[in-house]
């Protein structure tokens, strides 16, 4: 099955109830198998500049790479598969552009952004992330957070200083330990996951995960999985009904079928005739 048929992508973003600016930026295209979400930070409108640069640069550059790319092939120099290698390179380029803009223009000083990027190919998804924007996966009944935040709170959780229950009441929710564009270099965390038909992936900014409990998010995605547009609207609405103190963004990706890359000569021939 072609990616455009195998994946259904719904993209939503909303400034929330309190803020006048939307510093989140989202991008998604089922045909390319690529979705990107960024949550910008920095004074005045610098946050939206940073997140907008991140999604625009990454989507434009990766769209040129994807049609020609064999993501599973190993890059001879780095020893990494090409999917990872391209994500690393493009994230480094975006980081450099944002960092330079922040250095050269005083009104952009200190801007930065979080990032989650998911690239679907051959029944697999490569997920890269920086900061506290998240990717969740619904598989059957199980709704699980796949990415681990790069945040002070997560570090406190990991070191056992606080329990998940206490974390809900923490006042340090808003401190990320990694961001795109704030330093000359940044490390993007990348992992691959197997994708099964029926899976639903949710990318979101902290405007959703801070305002709506995971159980409620899970219930909403499960209940409304037959109508993904409605599920996206409902998630935004729940964050706003709970106070909407931050910008809210969600990207939902539903896997409708198998999208294995053609491997044998016969499959390649078939794919060629399709």
């Amino acid at each position, binding site marked *: 099955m072609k990616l455009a048929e195998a994946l259904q992508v719904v993209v939503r973003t909303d400034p929330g109830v309190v803020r006048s600016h939307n510093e989140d930026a989202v991008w998604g295209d089922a045909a390319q198998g690529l979705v990107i979400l960024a949550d910008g930070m920095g004074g005045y409108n610098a946050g939206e500049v940073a997140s907008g640069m991140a999604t625009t640069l990454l989507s434009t550059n990766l769209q040129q790479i994807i049609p020609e790319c064999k993501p599973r092939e190993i890059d001879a120099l780095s020893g990494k598969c090409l999917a990872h290698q391209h994500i690393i390179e493009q994230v480094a380029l975006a980081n450099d552009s944002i960092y330079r803009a922040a250095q050269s223009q005083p009104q952009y000083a200190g801007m930065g952004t979080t990032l989650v990027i998911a690239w679907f190919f051959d029944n697999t998804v490569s997920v890269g992330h920086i900061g506290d924007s998240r990717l969740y996966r619904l598989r059957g009944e199980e709704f699980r957070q796949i990415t681990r935040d790069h945040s002070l709170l997560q570090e406190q959780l990991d070191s056992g200083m606080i329990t998940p229950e206490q974390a*809900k009441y923490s006042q340090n*929710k808003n401190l990320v330990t990694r961001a795109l564009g704030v330093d000359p270099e940044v490390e993007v965390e990348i992992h691959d996951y197997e994708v099964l038909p029926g899976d639903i992936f949710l990318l979101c900014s902290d405007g959703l995960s801070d305002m709506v409990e995971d159980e409620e998010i899970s219930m909403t995605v499960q209940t409304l999985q037959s109508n993904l547009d409605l599920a996206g609207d*409902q998630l935004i609405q729940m964050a706003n009904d709970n106070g909407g103190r931050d910008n809210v963004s969600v990207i939902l990706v539903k896997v409708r079928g198998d999208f294995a890359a053609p491997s044998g000569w016969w499959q390649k021939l078939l794919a060629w005739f399709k």
Partner: protein
Amino acid sequence: MAKMILSMDGLVLKEIPLNKERLTIGRKPHNDIQIDNLAISGEHAAIVTILNDSFLEDLNSTNGTLVNGQPIKKHFLKNNDVVELGKYKLKYINDTPSIGGSADFEKTMVLRAGAIKPPAPEKDKDAEPPTLPGASPAPVAAPVAAAEATAAPAVAAPAQTPAPAVIQLLNGPNAGKELELAKTLTTLGKPGVQVAVIAKRPHGYFITHVEGAQFPVVSGKTLDAQAHQLEDHDVIEIAGIKMEFFYKT
């Protein structure tokens, strides 16, 4: 800034600001808070403060440390927690101003490696590398300044909930049966045929079409794809089943 109020038998002895990353409590004189009493161990407990959060840790004391009457090894302090060491009580007060007006609430900030230091003497500011100033708000000062956060949970409970309401089936094999709309979302209908969902929101209940060629009918009117707010005693028709929506009084 958070503080501890030390008291014994209801008598306030001292107010201790939590201005150090690690503050120790014990009988011996090298402790930050010395309590010269035989019921207190030499090194009894420590309070670690990171930005706005403080953690209490018992240092294997002989007589233990209680928080709100419960013995603890490690505890995340919340406003008004009462810590007991022997006859002494320490009340934890963290009255950072409440949410009000500031749109900066919970603005995401970058925390750089090495940023967590105890509130520093002046000269530390000059010691910051020259690339940083003006970049992000100084990580140490910012959370305090921008921390309009309250002790309230950041995952806010819905501001208000509507009056409880139910759906009663009017025909079919389960006629007369009531279904309470307790969850945020309640689905009605048959998957694959026709499904609608009722969302419980702060200002009422809203029905929306989810799947199927037929749209739900509410009090004689066929809905479109938009959400529709339900009125008391509305009659809903989905997949041939009629049901009545009403508020429980």
